[in-house]
């Protein structure tokens, strides 16, 4: 359940931002989660509710922006999209893929008041 510690990191970011931008309540949190990042969106949702209870983000809406996975294929030299780390290159079938996108775990923006 590393999603719990990731959500606690999100909460720390929220408090840092609250101090910087002087807001009291977070209404929406938008997270970018790459398709290949090692998190389960449902677990993030569940853990966020648990760690935000009684905080400035209590009841905040969590929006998860799923970023697609992409990789550079060493065999055909193309950047291709992949859904899983073990996917072969959709063009040539090679597994010589170097993931270039889809690892994101970011707090994108917040709606606050």
């Amino acid at each position, binding site marked *: 359940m590393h999603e719990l510690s990731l959500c606690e990191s999100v*909460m720390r970011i929220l408090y840092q931002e*609250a101090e910087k931008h002087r807001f009291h309540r977070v209404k929406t949190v938008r997270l970018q989660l790459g398709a290949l*990042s090692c998190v389960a969106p449902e677990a993030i949702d569940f853990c966020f509710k648990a760690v935000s*209870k009684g905080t*400035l983000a209590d009841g905040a809406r969590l929006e998860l922006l799923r970023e697609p996975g992409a990789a550079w294929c060493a065999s055909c030299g193309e950047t291709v999209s992949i859904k899983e780390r073990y996917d072969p290159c959709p063009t040539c079938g090679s597994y010589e893929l170097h993931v270039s996108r889809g690892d994101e775990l970011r707090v994108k923006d917040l709606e606050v*008041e």
Partner: protein
Amino acid sequence: MCRVCGCSATAGDNADARVAEPGAPQHHAHAPDRDHHHDHGHRHHHQHTAHGHDHGHDYRHDHRRGGVVRAPLNAVHAPGIGQARIIQVEQDILAENDRYAAANRARLKAAGIAALNLMSGPGAGKTTLLVRTIADLGPILPIAVIEGDQETSFDAERIRATGAATIQINTGRGCHLDAHMVGHAIDRLEPAPGSLLIIENVGNLVCPAGFDLGEGARVVLLSVTEGDDKPLKYPDMFHAADLLVVTKTDLMPYVAFDLERCIGFARRVNPGIDVLTVSATDGAGLDAWYDWLKRAAAAGGTTAPSPLRETVPAGR
């Protein structure tokens, strides 16, 4: 909040974690009662020798509710401040861990210490392999060990019995080590310059994959009793590793484990992964493992950090 001592600056947030002193069961009075509550405004005392970051030690925290700092919720809507607005954050959730990892890496490199992050599911034989490795290699290569487990110091005791310097981190409810915990453990362990530091992560094929500790290389162990399909079942872990060590090969005759299939699966998720096979019981393959360790130690802290987030070669 600090996983080790409860101080405010941290990568992860696990108020339960603590580092056991060599020969002493606990770091300080937080454990083992994880549901305890204590007054705020107290200060923690711990060593910060050569520590690369500042701590706000009298930060408020609440151990009972996940350790998240709770600022007073200002629900009063004063005129003019009730307007909703959008704040651009664009911050990596793991950025704080990565900062601690970079500090650990720089510090280990400066001391010429090669650090390995040893990961596997529970029971794959990490500690058994380490005990055998220290017995065989210890006389020519100083090895220090950081042991991570949710509870107990059983593993540290096994390592300590070999004479190697070791320290136990208990993560409490935590499922992985993070860079801040490891930084504290390095403070206390003080591995000798030029030695090999092996960080035995919490037995778990999922969570440790996402947390850079500042190691030079990542090693994943998979025992033949676990099955040859694990690399596809837990792709993040095998993707993150530099080396796969297949353990307990002496049990191969008794289990349906297809080594070629296992390696094929591992290279599907990580085309560049090295593979070794060993048995700590009958000694098969240990020489190649020792060679690999010696090469890692010779590279010192300059071993290329394992790529957590790959980049496409420029211009392609």
